[in-house]
C-alpha cells in the first residue's frame, strides 16, 4: 500500500521522551527546608549534619573573604563559589584521602578539603608556583583548560585499576559549559570502555560565563548525555547538601566496586560574577532569573533543618564565621610571605634535565637575580 500513514520510527516521540528518566533530581531537603526523604536523612548523625553546615559556612566565608581580598588587590584570578556550597562540600566529603581529585578553577574549596592549604589556594590565585605544590599527592592543580581534566581522569582511573588499588577512585569536576567539549565525552567514554573507577561531576550552575545552559545543547538534562557511553547518571538537587553527599557516596561505592564510572549532574547556581576579573552578570541575566535560586540557598535550607532539631543557632554561626575569617586572614599572610619567584626556577622546572640552552639561560638569570 502506498503512502501508509504509519512511520516505522517515531522520532518526534523519541525526542519528546528521551529526558524522561533524568528529569527527577534527587532531593532530601526541599527549598523550604522541609525534609522530603526522612529515611535518607535518618542515615546521618547529628554530628554529620552539623558538620555539613559548618563546611558550607566555611565555604561561604571563604568566598566572602576572597572577594574582599580581591577588592583589595591581594588576589589574582579567582572564581567565586557562592551558591555552590552544597554541590562542592556535599560531593568532596564523600571521598577519601586516597581518592584522586581533578578540579577545575572553581573547585578550590574541594581542593582545600582534600589536603591543599588555604594559603596554597591563595598562592595559586596570585599566580605563584607554590600554589601548585601540594601536600596530598592525590590531586592536580585547578584545571584551566576546560575539559582537559576529564580525559586525564580516564588515565588516573585506569592507573588505579592497573595498580590493583582497592577502595580508590578518581573524581573530577566541570561546569555545564564543559559538557560541550569533546574531551568531556572522550574522558567518560574511555573510562567506560575500561570500566575504570571514576566519578564525573557536572556542576550545572546555569551559565558558562555569559552563555546560558540551554545554548550549550538542546538536551533537556546533562545527565542524559552519559547514557550514550553506557554510563549510569543522575541529576541531583545541587542546593541540597545531604542529597549531593548521599548520591556521591553511592557513586563512589559503585565505582570503587569495579562497576565502572558514574556521571552526576548537580543543579546549582553561581550567585555572582564568573570570575574576579570583573564580568558583569547583569549584562546577560535578569534579577527575575536569579531570585528563585537565591531563595533556594543551601545554607538557608540546612539552617532550617538544624534549627528545627535544635542543633544550630545564629550565635554559633556568627562565631564560626569570625573563626574562619581569622583563619583566612592568616592564610593570606602566609601566602604573602612566600618568597618572590625566580625565572631561574621556572627554567629549572621546565625540563627534568635542563637542555644546554636552558642551562646557559639559568646561569644568566641567576646572575641577574643575585644582583
Amino acid at each position: 500500500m502506498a503512502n501508509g500513514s504509519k512511520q516505522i520510527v517515531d522520532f518526534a516521540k523519541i525526542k519528546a521522551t528521551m529526558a524522561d528518566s533524568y528529569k527527577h533530581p534527587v532531593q532530601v531537603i526541599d527549598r523550604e527546608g522541609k525534609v522530603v526523604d526522612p529515611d535518607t536523612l535518618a542515615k546521618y548523625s547529628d554530628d554529620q549534619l552539623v558538620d555539613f553546615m559548618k563546611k558550607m559556612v566555611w565555604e561561604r566565608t571563604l568566598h566572602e573573604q576572597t572577594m574582599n581580598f580581591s577588592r583589595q588587590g591581594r588576589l589574582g584570578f579567582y572564581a567565586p563559589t557562592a551558591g555552590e556550597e552544597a554541590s562542592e562540600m556535599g560531593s568532596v566529603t564523600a571521598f577519601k584521602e586516597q581518592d584522586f581529585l581533578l578540579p577545575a578553577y572553581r573547585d578550590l574549596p574541594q581542593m582545600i578539603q582534600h589536603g591543599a592549604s588555604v594559603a596554597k589556594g591563595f598562592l595559586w590565585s596570585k599566580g605563584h608556583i607554590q600554589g601548585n605544590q601540594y601536600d596530598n599527592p592525590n590531586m592536580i592543580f585547578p584545571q584551566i583548560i576546560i575539559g582537559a581534566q576529564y580525559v586525564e581522569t580516564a588515565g588516573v582511573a585506569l592507573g588505579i585499576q592497573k595498580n590493583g588499588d582497592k577502595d580508590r577512585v578518581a573524581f573530577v569536576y566541570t561546569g555545564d559549559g564543559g559538557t560541550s567539549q569533546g574531551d568531556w565525552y572522550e574522558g567518560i567514554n574511555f573510562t567506560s570502555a575500561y570500566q575504570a573507577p571514576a566519578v564525573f561531576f557536572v556542576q550545572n550552575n546555569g551559565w558558562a560565563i555569559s552563555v546560558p545552559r540551554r545554548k550549550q545543547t538542546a538536551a533537556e538534562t546533562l545527565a542524559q548525555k552519559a547514557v550514550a557511553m553506557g554510563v549510569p547518571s543522575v541529576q541531583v538537587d545541587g542546593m541540597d547538601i545531604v542529597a549531593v553527599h548521599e548520591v556521591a557516596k553511592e557513586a563512589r561505592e559503585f565505582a570503587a566496586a569495579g562497576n565502572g564510572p558514574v556521571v552526576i549532574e548537580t543543579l546549582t547556581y553561581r550567585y555572582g560574577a564568573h570570575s574576579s576579573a570583573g564580568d558583569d552578570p547583569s549584562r546577560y541575566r535578569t534579577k527575575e532569573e536569579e531570585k528563585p535560586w537565591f531563595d533556594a540557598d543551601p545554607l538557608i535550607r540546612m539552617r532550617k533543618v538544624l534549627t528545627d532539631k535544635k542543633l544550630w543557632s545564629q550565635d554559633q554561626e556568627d562565631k564560626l564565621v569570625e573563626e574562619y575569617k581569622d583563619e583566612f586572614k592568616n592564610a593570606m599572610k602566609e601566602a604573602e610571605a612566600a618568597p618572590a619567584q625566580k625565572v631561574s626556577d621556572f627554567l629549572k622546572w621546565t625540563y627534568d634535565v635542563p637542555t644546554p640552552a636552558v642551562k646557559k639561560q639559568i646561569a644568566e638569570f641567576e646572575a641577574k637575580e643575585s644582583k
Partner: protein
Amino acid sequence: MAKMTYIKAITSGLDQVLNDDSKTLIFGEDVGKNGGVFRTTVGLQDKYGEDRVFDTPLAESGILGLAIGLSLTGWRPIPEIQFMGFTFEAMDGIVGQLARDHYRFGGQKKFPVTIRTPFGGGTHTAEMHSDNLENYFVSTPGLRVVTPANPYDAKGLIISAVESDDPVLFMENLKLYRSMKDEVPDDKYTVPLDSAKVVREGSDVTLVAYSAEVNEALSAADALAKDNISAEVIDLRSLSPIDTDTVFASIDKTHKVVIVQEAQRMAGVGAIVASDIAEEKIMSLDAPIGRVAAPDSVYPFAQAEGDWIPNADDIEAKAREIVNY
C-alpha cells in the same frame, strides 16, 4: 578620525566588514550578548542580529569545524578563540584541516576564515591565559598570521584579513588592548596582509619586532638616541609570510640587526627572520645578528611576568652590544 584604543579599532573594523558583506559571521564563546570577555565584539549582536553574531557551545574544536563547514557553504566566518592558549583544542581544525584545505581541494574551494585570538602577556591573567604560541602557526603552510602593534594597523589589518580568501590567524595583543590609543579613520581602509613597516627611521642598527615588543623597541630606540645611536625600528605586522624585503632594505642601510620577540627564544619567529637574514644578507652585516627573546621556560606564573617578558632595557642592552661589536 577619532582617537581609538586598539580594541575599539578592532571592533570598528569588524563593524565595517559585517556592514559591507552580509556573508560575514562572528561566532565563539561569549561573543554575543556579552560582546566577548574583552568586549571586542560589543554591540555587534545588537546591530547585526543573532544570525550574524552568535554564541557557540563551549568547544574550540567545534568552533573551527563550524568555520570550515560554513566556508564550504558560502559564508565568511570570523570565529573567536577566547584566549590563544585554547587554540590547542582547535589545533586539528586550524592546522590539520583549515590550513590544508585549499591545497587539498586543488584550489577549487576557498576558505575565507579569520580566526581572532588574544595572545601575549604582561597583564597578570590566570594561568594558561597568557601565551605566545605564534610559532606553531607560522610553521603551517596555507595559513597567514598577522598581528597589529597599534590601533591604526589593527583596524586596517582586520578588514584585510576578513576580506582575504585565505585563512588568517589574527592575533590581538592582550596588553595593547587598552593601553594604546591612536588616530583611527572612521571610514574603511586596509593594511596589506604581508607587509612590514618601518616605524622609526635610523642608520646605526635595525630593530625588528612585532606586537607589543614594537613599543619596547621604540622606547629602546629613544634611549639609544640619547647616546647618538640611531636605531631603525621595523614592525613585522605579518608573521607568515614575513616581509623580508623591508628587513633587508633596512639592513643594507644599517648593517646591524637585533630581532626581538616576546615569545620564548626557541619559539620560532625570530629564528626564521635570523635565518632569512643569514641566507641573503650575511655579507651586508657588520656584526652578528642579535636576538632578544623570553627564556625557554614554560610561560611563567603571573607574579613573575615582569622579570620574564623582554623589555626596552633588554633590547637596549643587546643593541649596544651589537652596535659596539
